[in-house]
């Protein structure tokens, strides 16, 4: 049990503070997610999601989620006030913000690059200009690689352990899913959409990482 939760009780101050933080995060994330999705739909030139394929819709949801979370992380990295709202605990250290800010900035930048990547992938190929979209996706991938490398370099042993644990689960999940998917697609039972492959790989990476990050108390 974490130190902060040892003071937790039904309706206790710690519980109320955590609920307030959750409500604040949900509100900010919801507003940012809605805005990003609306902008992405506008960019696609349609207000009717029915014209999108299932995978394009999922790509837009990933765009909104990673864009909102990444945006909040980058904003916190530049604002001590925002960071303190999100990270108040009895053990919080005034100097902690200085150490946490670069980590938040690089993690948020990586997520924002993922949002750009998926927004570009969601663009229907027949309507998208390959000359713009393809370099944009390549640039987003390079930014992700750079941000992840910077994050790894600045991480301590707990963050590195969380990264490695998430990566191991992601690899196992991806091998299983693709190994099942390939024969089913070869024999014509399911389709094999390249966008779906990227979505599966991304979700197989993001979901375990978030779960382990929470489980390890980060």
């Amino acid at each position: 049990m974490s130190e902060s939760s040892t003071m937790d009780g039904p309706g206790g101050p710690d519980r109320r503070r955590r609920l307030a933080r959750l409500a604040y995060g949900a509100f900010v994330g919801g507003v940012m997610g809605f805005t990003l999705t609306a902008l992405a739909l506008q960019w696609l030139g349609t207000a009717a999601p029915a014209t999108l394929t299932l995978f394009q819709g999922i790509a837009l949801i990933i765009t909104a989620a990673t864009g909102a979370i990444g945006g909040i992380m980058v904003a916190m990295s530049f604002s001590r006030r925002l960071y303190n709202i999100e990270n108040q605990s009895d053990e919080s250290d005034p100097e902690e913000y200085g150490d946490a800010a670069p980590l938040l900035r690089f993690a948020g930048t990586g997520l924002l690059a993922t949002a750009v990547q998926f927004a570009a992938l969601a663009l229907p190929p027949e309507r998208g200009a390959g000359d713009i979209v393809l370099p944009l996706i390549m640039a987003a991938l390079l930014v992700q690689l750079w941000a992840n490398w910077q994050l790894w370099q600045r991480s301590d042993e707990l963050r590195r352990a969380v990264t490695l644990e998430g990566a191991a689960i992601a690899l196992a999940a991806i091998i299983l899913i693709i190994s099942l998917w390939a024969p089913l697609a070869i024999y014509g039972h399911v389709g094999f959409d390249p966008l779906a492959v990227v979505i599966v790989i991304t979700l197989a990476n993001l979901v375990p990482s978030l779960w382990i990050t929470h489980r390890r108390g980060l």
Partner: protein
Amino acid sequence: MQNQLKALRVAKGWSQGELARRTGVTRQTINAVEGDKYDPSLPLAMRCARLLGVPVETLFTDIWEPEEEG
């Protein structure tokens, strides 16, 4: 793995941040170790024990017992 990190740290009058600075990790790592959410590496365990002035086996206890032969 159970540990006495919090009790010994508080007895020393250090915050989590102070112990984190002295051991070269983040406060979240110390918090995760104290909360039994993360087992530290051997070097970190040894650094904590040295700073708190106790043997590692006093700081961290494992309930595992070897099976009796025979």
